């Protein structure tokens, strides 16, 4: 089985000897945020077999540069909306780790009160505004948020994260058309990882069709980028955000990336046969986290000692958050019946 989905980006080679216009502080922050997400995912994965997180999980390993690179260009009152693969965006936007883990452990103090589960993480205090487990379901909703900003003349932007498969849902294009028509401050951020569960892109969309070109046909500025390269993600999102803030309307970003783990649950499932384990290994060479670390080291912006410290801090934070979640109370029967209607 050949490597079907050719890697189209350059990893960090494209920035290898190139100074970024971003400050050292920001660059190191980007790295630390990616590292944190990676470690959190690893921790969740390592404990998932205990069967205490009674929630489906959709790990984001391989996608970290997208979450962190894009969310870093947003302000706290800019809003993001996600699909089922929420962990990375939730954390990158500043969502509470304790709230997330409590949610995975089905606790009363979970970030959505144990009503939502891992596919409905939200933390409205930081602009992680909602998610939908229905593929493409949140795209029109993010568009509606942008409409509210426009109507209220607020200087805010909303982002809809979507997978490659979400572009097969008609509602995606309905939302894109409306956003372009009204010049809404929304960014459609497509994480093209070439798979929908176990179905490769080629059984769902014709060969030689590029997703971002569809968006272009609908009248949007659209771009295809290397989703494992956080600086590319940062730059293109920043451009889109600027466009939105200027009133010039929406942008469609297609970031090529790869999911290292199975669609849901812990571990890689390539052995089942739907994708070549070599393909996974191929993509792992372009680790968004490690690749950026190498870059920072090469550019003399970071050191091994600093990384070790970060690892230590992150480890402590994660342990504390797990302890918090596990020792948190379960919901009560009465909780079932609240919030069906709003007053």
């Amino acid at each position, binding site marked *: 089985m050949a490597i079907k989905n050719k890697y189209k980006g350059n990893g960090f080679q494209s920035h290898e000897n190139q100074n970024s216009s971003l400050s050292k502080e920001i660059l190191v922050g980007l790295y630390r945020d990616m590292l944190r997400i990676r470690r959190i995912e690893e921790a969740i994965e390592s404990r998932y077999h205990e069967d205490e997180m009674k929630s489906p999980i959709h790990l984001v390993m391989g996608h970290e540069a997208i979450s962190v690179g894009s969310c870093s260009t947003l302000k706290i009152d800019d*809003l993001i*909306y996600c699909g089922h693969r929420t962990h990375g965006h939730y954390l990158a936007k500043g969502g509470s780790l304790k709230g997330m883990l409590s949610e995975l452990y089905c606790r009363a103090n979970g*970030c*959505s*009160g144990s*009503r*939502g589960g891992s596919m*409905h993480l*939200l933390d*409205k205090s930081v602009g992680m*505004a*909602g998610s*939908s487990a*229905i593929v493409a*379901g949140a*795209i*029109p*909703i*993010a*568009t*509606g*948020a*942008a*409409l*509210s*900003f426009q*109507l*209220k003349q607020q200087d805010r932007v*909303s982002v809809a994260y979507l997978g490659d498969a979400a572009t097969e849902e*008609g*509602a995606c*294009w*309905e*939302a894109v*058309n*409306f956003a372009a*028509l009204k010049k809404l401050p929304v960014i459609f951020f497509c994480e093209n990882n070439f798979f929908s569960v176990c179905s490769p892109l080629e059984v769902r969309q014709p060969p030689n069709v590029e997703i971002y070109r569809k968006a272009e046909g609908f009248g949007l500025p659209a771009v295809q980028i290397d989703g494992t390269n956080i600086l590319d993600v940062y730059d293109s999102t920043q451009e889109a955000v600027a466009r939105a803030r200027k009133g010039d309307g929406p942008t469609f970003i297609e970031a090529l990336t790869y999911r290292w783990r199975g669609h849901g649950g812990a571990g890689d499932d390539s052995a089942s046969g739907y994708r070549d384990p070599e393909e996974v290994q191929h993509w792992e060479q372009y680790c968004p986290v490690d690749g950026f670390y190498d870059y920072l080291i090469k550019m003399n912006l970071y050191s091994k000692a600093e990384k070790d410290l970060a690892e230590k801090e992150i480890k402590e934070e994660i342990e504390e958050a797990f302890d918090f979640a596990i020792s948190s109370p379960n919901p009560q029967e009465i909780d079932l019946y*609240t*919030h*069906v*209607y*709003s*007053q």
Partner: protein
Amino acid sequence: MPWAEALLASKSNELPCSQEGRVLSYVDALNEAMALALGLDPNVIVLGQGVNDPKGMFGVTTDLHKKFGVERVFDTPLSEEGLFGVCTGAAMNGIRPVYLHNRPDFLLLAFNQIVSHSSKFHYMDNGETNVPLVAWAAIGRGWGSGAQHSQAIQGLLLGVPGLKIIMPSTPYDAKGLMLTAIADNNPVLIFEHRWCMRNKGVVPEGIYKVPIGEGVYRRKGTDLTIVGTSHSIELATQAVDQLNDTGITADVIDLRTIKPLDEKIILESVQKTGKILIVDTGWEMGGVCAEIGCLVAEKAFSYLKAPVRRIGLPDVPSPAGFTLEQFYYPNEENFSQVIKEMVEKT
């Protein structure tokens, strides 16, 4: 919230529907409600296919865009699913959209957003998100509307938690319930009936509120209870009035809302009469009639003196042709017939 405050500040609550006062058409009553809401709260918007065209959605939205601007009263692409989601997202962020459709049939395209998103965010988001939106549509009938342009789909949505569903029959209620719906912090569906939209009636000026979830007696009587909404309860009322000479009297209850359902008024009346006829503009099977029939058999069984009866549509798609339509839709005569049978058999 400017809206809620203004509503509470306005002294009027449930106004009695007196027979005196200004007479308005059903359509104008709706138009007035929207104009009041738009005037009161800058977050209210009105949208839908053709809301600002010369036809103005049967006249319901006529000229609103001239008064309030095309930013707030605007035409939309077709995209029913996408636009319902857009309304939901806007509502989650402080806008109060009123999204109008010619026909409920077109809402079938948006069921994913209605059933799995709009009505569920408040719950899924642990009460942190509100979705104050109104979706409005007018049930079609006649002139060849046919199977795809005349569906009364309220029964399909009755089971969906988190939704409110309104079906008015009078201009008074149409205006009052529209105002209440816009002020409500939940997704509210309003199903009008094209034939009710021909009605005229007394409609107070200014803001008043008709509560969601409360029925009213249109007639009081002793022989049986008739409950329903919209055009069906109108027909039932006419049938009862025509039977006056025969000495038959009935409690005729216009529920006005089918979700939440006013169980109290239904059970109270059945307790008195012991007989119930349930009427609806939709299919009998699995619809509003079924819910109320079951409810009564559960909660008022000991008072029931006769089988419950329902009058809705048969388990058949609406035919397009005129003659077939006459056979399809129950008329006043069918109503009278059933009422007489129910009263006679004791």
